[in-house]
């Protein structure tokens, strides 16, 4: 194992500050994207199920389009194409936020729509029969039950979003991947850096994935 002798792992602790700021940015980016995705995703889902075609069709188109497009291309589009075609110039961070949220909102919208549709029709009809208005039946009967059902899939989206933020390194956002890749470019310690990068992501994402599995078990619905 000749190659093991040539490794120099000291590049990891000596660049710990840079990697740590990358971790922070990755977490912040995931968090803000998730908030925006939940807001826009909920709006898209409600438009989709509201019963008016003028609203549900455009919503379905937007959701299906952003679910089908590669995230990397979306990020390129917002960061390179938009300023070349229009006067809109976003900073790398904002461009990343827009690209990730467009994608995230589409996934969240599907999850929330499925959650709303999973509540049996009889419940809404019973609420209406009791004299509730349609919006009151939606807010008081359907939504509270749907929220509980969408928490596990939302956690799944969070975990994949956390990993997908690594793609923003390609448009120059200083996330964890970007930090590691710049250390690699300075030190040429390719093997050590890439292995450390994989291990750091593993240590961060593994507990999240296990928590998600637990949520799926805990909140399982049986009818």
């Amino acid at each position, binding site marked *: 194992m000749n190659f093991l002798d040539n490794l120099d792992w000291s590049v990891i602790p000596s660049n710990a500050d840079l990697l740590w700021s990358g971790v922070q940015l990755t977490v912040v980016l995931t968090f803000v994207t998730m908030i925006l995705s939940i807001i826009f995703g909920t709006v898209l889902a409600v438009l989709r199920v509201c019963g008016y075609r003028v609203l549900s069709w455009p919503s379905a188109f937007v959701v299906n389009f952003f679910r089908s497009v*590669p995230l990397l*291309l979306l990020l390129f*589009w917002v960061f390179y194409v938009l300023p070349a*075609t229009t006067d809109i110039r976003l900073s790398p961070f904002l461009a990343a936020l827009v690209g990730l949220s467009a994608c995230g909102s589409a996934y969240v919208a599907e999850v929330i729509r499925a959650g709303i549709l999973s509540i049996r029709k009889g419940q809404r009809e019973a609420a209406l029969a009791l004299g509730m208005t349609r919006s009151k039946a939606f807010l008081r009967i359907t939504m509270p039950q749907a929220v509980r059902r969408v928490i596990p899939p939302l956690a799944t989206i969070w975990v994949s979003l956390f990993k997908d933020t690594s*793609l923003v390194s390609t448009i120059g956002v200083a996330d964890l991947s970007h930090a590691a890749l710049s250390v690699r470019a300075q030190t040429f310690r390719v093997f050590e850096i890439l292995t450390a990068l994989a291990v750091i992501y*593993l240590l961060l994402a593994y507990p999240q994935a296990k928590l998600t599995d637990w949520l799926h078990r805990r909140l399982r619905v049986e009818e």
Partner: protein
Amino acid sequence: MNFDVVLDNRDFLLDGLRVTVFISALAIVISLAIGLLVGGVRAYGPRPLAAVAAVYVDVVRSIPFLVILMWLFFAPPIMLGVGLSPLWTAVAALAVHEGAYFAEIFRAGLLSVRAGQTQAGLAMGMTKMLVIRRIVVPQATIRMLPPLATYCGAIVQKSAVTSVIAVEEMTRQAQLLTSVTYRPFEIFTSVMVVYAVIVYSLIWAVEAVYKRLAPRGAS
């Protein structure tokens, strides 16, 4: 706005599309094989093997695809002195990554068939293998169709990431073409639409098949 630049260079972009389809199709086939094996071992295999399979699934699902791709591209030459070409690295990375997700789909699908059916099969004198093959797998396969389609679509989407190791697939070709023609809007928008059409029609087609078969998968 002038989409002539896309039409004039369609051969160049179609070359990229061919590579995208090639690596995606191959990665889907290998992922299915990995998923079947690992998912089957997790559902029915002996404890120690199932534990190894679980480690593979958990580790791979916790690391971003970009990092797996770059590691598989740069690490083997340093460790072993030899490595794969960008194209085969792309196929390997996609298969290793998505194989873990496929394994989870297979496992969940196999375990979703009610235990009473297996017991009934065994009580009728069928062997365990025969029960799995004739009773569990046919129903599980139908139930697994929608998530499998979603993750096959994800392979096509993720294949765009392989452009960072210079695989000449559609995204890479679009970047090269943009650097020569400087028409980013037309080129990237067209390529994005092509991806959307491929991925959406894949999911839509499987969904259509699923709707017809769903009653047979319900138990």
